[in-house]
């Protein structure tokens, strides 16, 4: 049993920490948060040069041949420095499904360009019903003239406004079992029938409404087999949940450190507030949340990486980490007092992301229900 990082992972972690601390200061985060685009092209290119986009893709596709665990380490650092931008959807919601289900031709078409930082992708999955069940997929893809025509509205699609391709999850057949009849299409975002509207969100992440109006896509854009897309989505959602946990662990660690450092410096009643037991106990609670979150995420990530059945571990991790990150940032705000309740301050950047992260790919209630099923209830 070895629950620590490998030497290479430690090196990656340190390098990513140093790079992002320098290249992604909070000033930039706030600028990008307020922008529509949400990412810095210059920073994106530097990340690509470091091999970050290609990290988890095989070397034959110009990737780094790294593992999902390596990605978890990297995402942790992105979460620590709250890096804005479409890295997450591009790799986790775009590249990984293509790697898993794509034809050789599709892999050769997309993965090297993703690895080089030349493409931004995302997945258009959820709809106004805002659920992650197969039955929530109602956007229709109907055969027309040898192609497919996609119609319907997708909602909460991250970075659709800057994406080059959208993996659109659509229903191609109505059957008794909603898990069959779903197909994934890799859709060119420049298609004239696609209309993106940027939503204004708590975490300033670029979520969009995406309306598909008679969007014509060739058969070749189907990822995997027609009507058989849902297992790929389930796999994607499990990886995405854990990847999001990895980001949240990094963010929670940063929030903890900020709060502890402040508690050591802030003087009231002629002593640092960190000498008061209430504040010490808050910090003790925060570190239990952060440490618990870290190892529960590593466990789920390891199981996914090994190809072991991971449904229960993934649900456990997502349920815990979402709640934990929120608890940590709330206590962080409590420790910072008044100054934390300003836009100028940094703690709210983490709090907002805690809320958004907890919500993504199923909130804690959703994942607890998955655990309940796994318990045999």
């Amino acid at each position, binding site marked *: *049993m070895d629950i620590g990082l490998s030497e290479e*992972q430690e090196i990656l972690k340190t390098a990513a920490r140093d790079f992002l601390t320098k290249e992604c200061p909070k000033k930039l985060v706030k600028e990008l948060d307020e922008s529509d685009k949400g990412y810095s092209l210059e920073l994106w290119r530097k990340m690509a040069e470091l091999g970050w986009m290609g990290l988890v893709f095989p070397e034959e596709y110009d990737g780094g041949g790294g593992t999902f665990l390596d990605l978890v380490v990297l995402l942790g650092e992105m979460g620590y420095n709250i890096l804005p931008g479409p890295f997450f959807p591009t790799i986790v919601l775009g590249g990984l499904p293509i790697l898993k289900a794509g034809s050789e031709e599709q892999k050769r078409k997309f993965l090297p360009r993703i690895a080089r930082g030349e493409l931004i992708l995302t997945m258009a999955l959820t709809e106004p019903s805002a659920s992650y069940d197969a039955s929530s997929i109602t956007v229709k893809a109907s055969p027309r003239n040898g192609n497919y025509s996609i119609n319907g509205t997708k909602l909460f699609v991250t970075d659709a406004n800057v994406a080059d391709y959208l993996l659109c999850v659509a229903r191609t057949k109505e059957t008794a079992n909603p898990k069959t009849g779903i197909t994934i299409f890799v859709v060119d975002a420049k298609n004239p029938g696609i209309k993106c509207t940027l939503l204004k969100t708590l975490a300033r992440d670029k979520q969009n409404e995406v309306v598909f109006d008679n969007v014509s896509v060739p058969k070749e854009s189907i990822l995997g087999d027609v009507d058989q897309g849902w297992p790929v989505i389930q796999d994607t959602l499990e990886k995405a949940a854990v990847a999001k946990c990895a980001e949240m662990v990094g963010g929670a660690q940063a929030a903890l450190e900020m709060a502890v450092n402040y508690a050591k410096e802030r003087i009231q009643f002629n002593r640092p507030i960190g000498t008061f037991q209430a504040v010490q*106990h808050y910090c*003790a609670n925060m570190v239990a949340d952060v440490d618990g979150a870290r190892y529960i995420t590593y466990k789920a990530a390891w199981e996914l990486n090994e190809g072991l059945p991971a449904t229960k571990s993934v649900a456990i991790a997502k349920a*815990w980490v979402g709640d934990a990150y929120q608890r940590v940032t709330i206590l962080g705000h409590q420790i910072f007092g008044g100054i934390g309740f300003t836009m100028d301050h940094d703690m709210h950047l983490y709090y907002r992301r805690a809320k958004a992260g907890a919500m993504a790919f199923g909130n804690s209630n959703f994942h607890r229900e998955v655990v309940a099923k796994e318990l045999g209830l």
Partner: protein
Amino acid sequence: MDFSFTEEEEAFRKEVHDWIKKETPQRWFELDPLFWEETDESWAISREFQQKLGRKGWLAPAYPKQYGGSGMSHMKRLILAEELGYNKAPVGIEMEVAVNWVGPDLLLFGSEEQKQKYALGIAKGDLVICLGYSEPNAGSDLASLQTTAVQEDDEYVINGNKIWTSYAHYADYCWLAARTDPNAPRKYDGISMFVVDMKTPGITIHPLINLMNRHSFNEVFFDNVRIPKENLVGKKNNGWYELMIALDSERSGIGYAATFQRILEELVEYAKERKCHKDPIIRQKLAEMAVEIEVSRMMCYRIAWMFSRDLHPSYESSMSMVFTSELLRRLADVGMDIAGPYGQLERDSKWAVLQGRIERLCLNCLSIGVGGGSNEIQRNIIAQRGLGLPRK
């Protein structure tokens, strides 16, 4: 990174599991004592079981072989603790205290003779040693203890009283913290550790009835109790540091997650019996317990892993104890939720369910998180030692 156990470790787990199943008498399950519920009968069973564990070198596996241990790896010790917990093995608080708190101190600071006599005796399960730490006015502030040990020629004379002394009425010896220098400028610097034969004249044991309505702990009075000076362990006036090191090293309770796992499984089955397993609230609560038990397990694994890498936990053990203890209270609560009014029924009441376990757990869980270092003190340790927050 690897969260799996090796083949050898898995084989060991099976070996331990099978052995425990074979050696646990059926009567133990009928008695079903939680901590603090010892009776003479359950005590006799757990003593016998611990001696059997001792003969296998499994009672104090961390001790060196010549002192009754088995040089067992940290991971195997984790596995052993998990299996003992999960399978409700007949081990009680006495094992926890003697093996994890007293023995390590003896091994670190005792003379060779003391190690042979007491540490080995603990490891074999032959000796029962109770803990003479807390006093009526020295709980969390243990260092302000007032029991004195005054040297007179070849003896020390002990006067004072200890409280919450678990199983003193069964003990052969008392591991005693006493003040040997009342004039030391700091209270920490005047304390020494002794082994006291409980048959020594002048010792009076007064039972205290605990919340489980059982006689488990005691008040112990020392009235001019004379012990040989050889019974001093380590250096005179160095006792506080000796005591703290032991309290530190094994505060982890690494088997508790497995114990809770078993409780959870029983609650899941019970929820199905009560036909409330489709109730969304019960599902959420049971799932949350599964989540937290897994987090608790990860905290335990992390400690074992740190030790296996020769990394010494600083705050990690305290953190695990706090989390685990408060988890048990939530678990007991969920049990009550499922049982509804049946959860109130004591074991021997008509209509009682699960041998009254839920009612007993609700009471039992109030002690964990208080005894052995309250959660308030533990959180102070986490904050100060783990996060570097200033004391003043």
